């Protein structure tokens, strides 16, 4: 069985955009960067923004990265209008999980011995903590996966969620990615030579079988026409030499075979990885390469970025505009596009994204970027 998969809800929480599809669409029409801060510049989400999204009583029980996940997930489910009781799966992609809680748990022991161990923090040391808390928050009772991979966790989570819907195993999946910035993690990534611009946040999409979405009158904000993921040979955390992979070809074939007309790529400023991705795309798509964009320079790299690219691709396919990261007018495009992710270590993801049949509504009362967010 292979069913059409549509996007019926979007939730974005990062330093540049907070909201559902209207906020995202408004930002993509005139994208602006959030200035990186800190000694090792990174794009951070202001605490007061997050505080405005999660009830204080609930927030006290949740780690910060779980709050990010739940906030974006709720935005997406609310926009879709889906009743989770009808069946909702969950796929969370994350590169780093809840390291902040893991470090705090270890510090409890190192400073106070066994008496310093927190039974409340311990569950957060397992990377499925975001999925576990979000499943409770949105009443998702079907499969709930957490997928861990560097760089492309968000793209992979959406691809996996779309595959579950396409196969007929479930009618609806909430899928996306999330990561947060942590000083110790930054120290470790520095030690490993990761030199991309880092960010944090969460983006989630509700994916549904088109027939089921139509039957309940749900919006169709975009279409996931084909997905595939594979691995290109590379050492752990490494950049490979090979440039051939069936991921792009398989995704395009599943989407009907038409060549993608534009690209969202995972380029994040990690110079060696970005160069490898360019070679892989050239090998798969030939020349001239379709116009391409990455939003990493605007919001920083995190697992939510891959899902953000899928949501943005849905907007591009509907609006006919590939946004310009420098805030310019963007590039006029037509047809379906490709969301592409390539990770250190060789994880390779491709999604063909097309237009839905619902217009993206502008954010109410909004001109320019959807929210004036502080950047401290």
């Amino acid at each position, binding site marked *: 069985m292979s069913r059409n998969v549509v996007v019926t809800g979007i939730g974005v929480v990062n330093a540049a955009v907070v909201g559902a599809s209207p906020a995202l669409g408004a930002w993509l029409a005139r994208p602006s960067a959030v200035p990186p801060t800190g000694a090792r510049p990174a794009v951070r989400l202001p605490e007061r923004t997050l505080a405005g999204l999660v009830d204080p009583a609930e927030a006290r029980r949740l780690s910060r990265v779980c709050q990010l996940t739940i906030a974006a997930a709720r935005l997406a489910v609310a926009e879709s209008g889906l009743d989770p009781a009808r069946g909702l799966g969950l796929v969370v992609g994350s590169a780093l*999980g809840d390291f902040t809680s893991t470090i705090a748990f270890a510090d409890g022991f190192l400073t106070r011995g066994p008496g310093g161990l927190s039974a409340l923090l311990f569950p957060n040391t397992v990377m499925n903590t975001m999925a576990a808390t979000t499943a409770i928050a949105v009443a998702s009772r079907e499969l709930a*996966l*957490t997928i861990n991979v560097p760089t492309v966790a968000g793209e992979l989570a959406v691809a996996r969620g779309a595959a579950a819907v396409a196969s007929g195993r479930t009618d609806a999946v909430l899928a996306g990615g999330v990561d947060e910035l942590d000083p110790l993690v930054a120290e470790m990534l520095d030690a490993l030579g990761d030199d991309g611009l880092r960010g944090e946040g969460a983006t989630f999409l509700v994916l549904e079988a088109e027939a089921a979405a139509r039957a309940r009158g749900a919006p169709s904000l975009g279409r996931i026409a084909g997905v595939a993921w594979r691995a290109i040979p*590379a050492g752990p955390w490494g950049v490979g030499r090979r440039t051939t992979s069936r991921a792009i070809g398989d995704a395009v074939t599943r989407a009907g075979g038409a060549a993608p007309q534009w690209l969202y790529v995972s380029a994040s400023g990690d110079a060696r990885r970005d160069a490898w991705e360019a070679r892989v795309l050239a090998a798969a798509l030939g020349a001239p390469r379709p116009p391409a964009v990455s939003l990493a320079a605007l919001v920083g790299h995190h697992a939510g970025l891959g899902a953000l690219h899928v949501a943005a691709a849905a907007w591009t396919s509907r609006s006919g505009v590939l946004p310009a990261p420098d805030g310019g007018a963007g590039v006029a495009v037509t047809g379906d596009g490709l969301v592409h992710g390539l990770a250190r270590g060789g994880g390779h993801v491709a999604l063909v994204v097309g237009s839905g049949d619902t217009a993206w509504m502008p954010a109410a009362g909004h001109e320019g970027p959807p929210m004036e967010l502080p950047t401290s």
Partner: protein
Amino acid sequence: MRRVVVTGLGAVSPFGAGVKAYWAGLAAGACAIRPLTLIDAGAFRCRIAAEVPDLRDGSSRRSRADRLALAAATEALDDAGLGRRECAEAALIVGAVGGGMLEAEEWYWARARGERPSGWAPALRAILPGAHAEMLGHRLGLGGPRHTVVTACSSGAVALAEAAELIADGVADVAVAGGVDAMTRLCFMGFNALKLLDPEPCRPFDRDRRGMSIGEGAAFVVLEAAERARARGARPYVELAGHGMTTDAYHVTAPEPEGDGMVRAMRAALAAGGVEPAAIGYANAHGTATPQNDRIEARAIARVFGDGRLLVSATKSMIGHTMAAAGSLEAVATILALVYETIPPTANLAIPDPEVGFDCVPRVAREAEVEHAISNSFGFGGQNVTLLFRRV
């Protein structure tokens, strides 16, 4: 959808390296839970665990968990007789939780002492759960679809379910799937903090059970489309006939009291395999030996299968709870139970819990010819998985 069969097995367990050692230990009802040596447990009430003995394979630059995974996955591939070309297209799905945390903890503990540890890049690179898949893919030349799933203690079983879906849907013809976890301080301390560890070897389904024992290990299987396995003359062990994956959406650590999510997972697996409850002869239980888990799991099994008839055993009584490896090690135990027509026992079970209405195969393995068997795995966050195996 295509039928999926198991054509290769690999395991590294607290009984040692290899499927042969694993089955010998299980069939003998031996208990591999002993005083802990890998980490300092002196400050804790529980000081025992099931460690893998004599782990010598591989480079010392690799994390202990990576070495466990590599040994098990290599054995599974060798057992299946897959060639290099087939591996290049094979999917790889890994269930993991702790990653290379054991070595990273040493770095962090040293850092906390005020030292300036150097030369730790390999440990930091291997710290995340996804690192095992990168290492295995690179070392074994696995170039098909690849991902790492983290569903806490059910991760290893989810990996098999994920791989089976890829094959059933025609995305891949062959897959290597399994779970791995090495002992870590965080895990041992965490379950101590939750007061879930028994200072004595665990006793699943015993009236006087007092909690779990931690273990470590890895198990991988090779899954193939049945037609393809037949075409290349491979010998299938069993068919992976169905699976069910559900979520409680109830609590981050406690299972839902009525076992609804567990029931849905078992029923989904039966439905996927087109099998009635009466056809199931054996259930390898999640069986952690915590008072709460065993009571709720027994209740859930009874809701699906009725009281009494089903043989139920908990192999954690012998190898401890091996975390992300548990689901795949128990899947291998279930497969071998079908193949050898022998039900592995529940070790240390002296006084059966009167609330558990099943024959839990106390202490001694039992001969039984079974056509279908299930393996249950449940994780923090109410992440429930049931795998259904059928003899071929």
